[in-house]
Structures are given as structure tokens and as C-alpha cells.
């Protein structure tokens, strides 16, 4: 079981790093968020004072970075689903399953493989944020907790995507699911703005949205405010629940071709 998981997991990772285009998009997409969206408050009336009043920091990119990293974990799930559909369409799923490998192991390797791929974005984004003038004074424990939070989020979303797309063999499904999930989860979260300015119904969603937990935890580390460590527990529970969901769904509904 360990052997099969390791083989499939390494395959996922190697396929990513051997495809420069996928790697480039994985890295460039959140960077563009920082560059374009992060710069949109450059000429806000009142300057730094307004930014501090709105975001608790004079550098909006410092506020935005944990949110962008959190929302980018959504696209990680989409890539994992696309890789699974590719395996189904080209028959590789059959090749895997005509060995003593279970569907659940395939799911686990895809979920953890795409989650690991998502973590590549962290160092790139941190370096980019440094270039935009953000300074970091995190302790090793805070770095580890931030990475752990993002890993939980990536595992949760890649599991959710894989569970939803398990019965599908259509190339379009991951994109459609991504559009359906990404937009509401991204905007109904604290990833880009403080949820205190949201209407009541959006605040209700933001309060249970795992993207908010990850964004708020990361933001407290970056801005040096006291972190709410329970967020890490919520994110671990989210990852665990989605893994259990995907594990069960793939055993029953993962289509072979």
C-alpha cells in the first residue's frame, strides 16, 4: 500500500516539475494577483492612513499575501482533478487499476500530490512580497503553522475537487466546478478584504469559510498581530473531513474510463 502510494505520489510531483507550463502558471497566477490587485490601492485617497484604517497596515500587499496564497489553493484542486481526468481519458487509470492498487490510494496520491504542488507557491510569493516591500518577522513556529494551514487548505480543496469530479471523464468538469466553487468562496472570505465590511449573510459564510481561517491566521503572522490558533484546528478538521469524503467517494464512484 505504501509502495503504490509513493509511486503515484512521486509521479504526480514529477509530472508537475517536468511540465514547465503548468509550473509557470502555478507560480505566475498568484504573483499576478499581488502585482495587479495588490497595486489597485496605490492611489487611495488618504494614502497610508486610509490603508491602515481599512486593513491594519500601510502596505495592502502585506494584507493581501496570506489571502492570495489561500485562494490559490483552490486552483490546486482543479489541477488535481484535471490530472485524474487525463489519466482516465488516456487509459492510464486502467493501467494503475490492473495492479493491486485501490481506487482510494489513487485518490490519496492525487490529493496529496496536488496539495504538495500548491506549496511551491509559498516561497515564490514570499520572495515576490519582499520585492513589493513587505517585511517578514515570523518565528520558525509561525512559519511552520502558516505552511501547515495552507497545506490543510490545499488537501481539503484538492480532496473536495477530486470527490466532486470522481465520476466524470469530461475535460470541462474541473473548470466548471472550479468556476462554481472559486468565486463564492473567494469573495465570501477574508482573503482580500476584512469581512467586517460585508453584509450579514456574507459575514455568515466568511465565518465558516476555510479560506478565511487560513487568510486570517497567515495575516496575523505577517502583520504581527496575536494569532487565533483555533483556526489551525478548524483547517485540520476541514482537511480531515474532505479526505474522508474523497476516500469514500472514490471507492464507490471513481470512474475508470
Amino acid at each position, binding site marked *: *500500500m505504501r*509502495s*503504490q502510494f*509513493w*509511486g*503515484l505520489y*512521486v*509521479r504526480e510531483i*514529477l*509530472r508537475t516539475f*517536468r*511540465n514547465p507550463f503548468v509550473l509557470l502558471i502555478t507560480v505566475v497566477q498568484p504573483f499576478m494577483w499581488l502585482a495587479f490587485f495588490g497595486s489597485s490601492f496605490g492611489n487611495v485617497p488618504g494614502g497610508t492612513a486610509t490603508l491602515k484604517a481599512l486593513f491594519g497596515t500601510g502596505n495592502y500587499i502585506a494584507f493581501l499575501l496570506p489571502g492570495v496564497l489561500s485562494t490559490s489553493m483552490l486552483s490546486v484542486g482543479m489541477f488535481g482533478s484535471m490530472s485524474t481526468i487525463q489519466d482516465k481519458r*488516456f*487509459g*492510464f487509470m*486502467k*493501467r*494503475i*487499476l*490492473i*495492479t*493491486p*492498487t*485501490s481506487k482510494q490510494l489513487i485518490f490519496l496520491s492525487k490529493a496529496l500530490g496536488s496539495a504538495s504542488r500548491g506549496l511551491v507557491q509559498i516561497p515564490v510569493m514570499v520572495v515576490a512580497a519582499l520585492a513589493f516591500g513587505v517585511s517578514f518577522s515570523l518565528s520558525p513556529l509561525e512559519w511552520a503553522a502558516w505552511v501547515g494551514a495552507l497545506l490543510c487548505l490545499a488537501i481539503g480543496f484538492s480532496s473536495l475537487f477530486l470527490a466532486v469530479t470522481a465520476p466524470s471523464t469530461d475535460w470541462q468538469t474541473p473548470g466548471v466546478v472550479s468556476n462554481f466553487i472559486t468565486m463564492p468562496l473567494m469573495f465570501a472570505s477574508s482573503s482580500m478584504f476584512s469581512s467586517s465590511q460585508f453584509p450579514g449573510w456574507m459575514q455568515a459564510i466568511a465565518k465558516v469559510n476555510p479560506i478565511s481561517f487560513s487568510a486570517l491566521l497567515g495575516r496575523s503572522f505577517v502583520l504581527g498581530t496575536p494569532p487565533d490558533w483555533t483556526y489551525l484546528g478548524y483547517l485540520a478538521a476541514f482537511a480531515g473531513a474532505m479526505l474522508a469524503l474523497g476516500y469514500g467517494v472514490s471507492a464507490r464512484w471513481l470512474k*475508470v*474510463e
Partner: protein
Amino acid sequence: MSLAEGGAAIDVRELSKRYGSVDRGVLALDRVTLRVANGTVFGLMGPNGAGKTTLIKVLTGISDITSGDASVAGFDVRRESLKVRARIGWVAAEVILDDDFSGWENLWLQAKLQALDDWQERANDLLKYFSLDDRKDDKVGHYSTGMRKKLEIALALLHQPSVIFMDEPTIGLDVATRRMLWDIVTGVHKEFGVTVLLTTHYIEEADALCERVGIIDQGRIIAVGSPDELKARVRADLVVLETRNGLDPKLLSSLPGVQDVRAQGNEWIIRVASAEQLLPKLLQTVPSDEVRRISVEKPSLETVFLDLTGHRIGQEEPMRDVRKFYAQMRRART
């Protein structure tokens, strides 16, 4: 039950497979019963859509069984699927490899999937056997079709399986590559002592490679035997007469030596003891302006199939299953 006790590498009993619901679905396999002896090359011959690939899918655990029983390598396909999958190899109709990986990396992945510890020596031996050792570090995306097929067979043999399933292994290949693969299948069987079940709709392939052949049509096994046994069943020539308009079958049946007459559109399949004796009389009886084409077929697996089913192996029914159509298009492209 162990393989030694059972004596059969593959044992299929009253196996049916239905896709979809009872009223609107398709019965792809209809109470198939089949026994493949250990250490033989068995060919499953039939036209596209006959149920060959479905049978392989069921026996390899890719598809569920609707009813009936099957065991492979001594293990029940339903209840002991993982044990079956640890003892079988599979060669697909379309070559399925990871093109981003080298030949050696594909073997590494296969070893991981089969949970093998000491696989490197065996992998090197297989690469040498298939003359791929000097290209093992190249990405398989750069391999020729023949090399890809060889690597796929090497993957199937890596874990020393008892049974290898080859699903139309030579479909879409040129004549030279097909001949090379025939030599490989024969060599693999002799060298590694493995039972081979291959499906094909090439008559000459079944004739050249298989010790025993099962003829499958519309989901049913209609005959099983060695190629010679099957040919001996016909014991007659088949004269195929195509006419411009209809004919009275009694006219043909009354000719001396005619054993049977079957109509298929404007084509008449006349079973006769000796085609040479029939032809002069046939041409005297049927007006010459009525005859569009006459052909004579001596006993072969093709005539066996024609005799048993009333249609030719390459004569397919209209495509009703869209998924099957796309699958065939994909195969044709590779």
C-alpha cells in the same frame, strides 16, 4: 482453490455483463463459459463489439460482473480482486505509458504499483530481452510504436504474472510491426511460461499465435477449439455469390453437392463439398447478367466464423454506442 488444483488459468462460468438497465441497457456478455488451460496461448476472436474487450475488463477487475462466476490464476475475480491483479499482466490495444517518463521510470512505477522490492535485475533482463536497454533513459514519448509496444509488454511481465491479457495487441500497426509482435508473443510465451489470453479480429493472427481459439459474437462464445479443430468443423468450401436481384434459394439448394444455402442481402453463402465441382453448374443455372461477384473460400477461421454466424468477422453492425465509437477513434489515432 489454487491454480495447480484448478488446472485452468482462466475459468469463466455462465458469466454475463450488462451495461445499463435491463430494459434499455446492452448485454455485452451473455452467459459466457470458457476455460483457458494453464500455460497456453488462447485467442478470443470476434468482430468489434462482440464482447472481447468487455470480457478482459471483467476478468481484470476493471468492470463488475452482472451474473455468473470467473476466476483467474486460481482466484475469484469478484472476491479476491487484489490477488488476481497481483498475478496478471495487461497489454492494451492502445499503448498506455507515461510519456513524460523514461522507459526505466515507467518500469519503476510499475514495480511500485506491483509492490515489488527487488525488481531492478528483472527490469534490466526484460530491457535486454526486448532490445530496449540502450534507450531505457529516454522519454518514452520519443520511442517508436514498436518500442512502446515492447515496453508495454515488459511492464506486463515485470512482476512475473501467471496470466497476461493482450487486448487486440496489434490493432493499428503496420505489417512489419505486427509480425515483430507475433514473434514477441510467441517468444514471451515460451521464455516466461506465461498463459496468454489475446483478443483479435485478425483471423491470421489467431491462426498464427493461438493454440486454442474461442469465437465470440454478440456477447456469446459460439465455438472453442484449436484452429485445426475449428477448421475441421466446416469440412466444406463456401461459395459466396452476390447477385443483382433476388434468387430462389431452392434453385441453389437443388444443385449437386450443396449442403446449405444462406441469404444475406443480395449475397448467398453456399456451403458445398467441392467448390470446383459446383462452379460450372452454378454458372449454368444462374443467368450471367444476375451475377455480380463470386468468391470461393476454403476452410479457414474466416469461413468457420462465416459458417457459424452468417456474417464476416470484419462486417460490423451499425455503431450504436457513441462511447465505443470514440474509443475506437482514439485507438485508430494511436
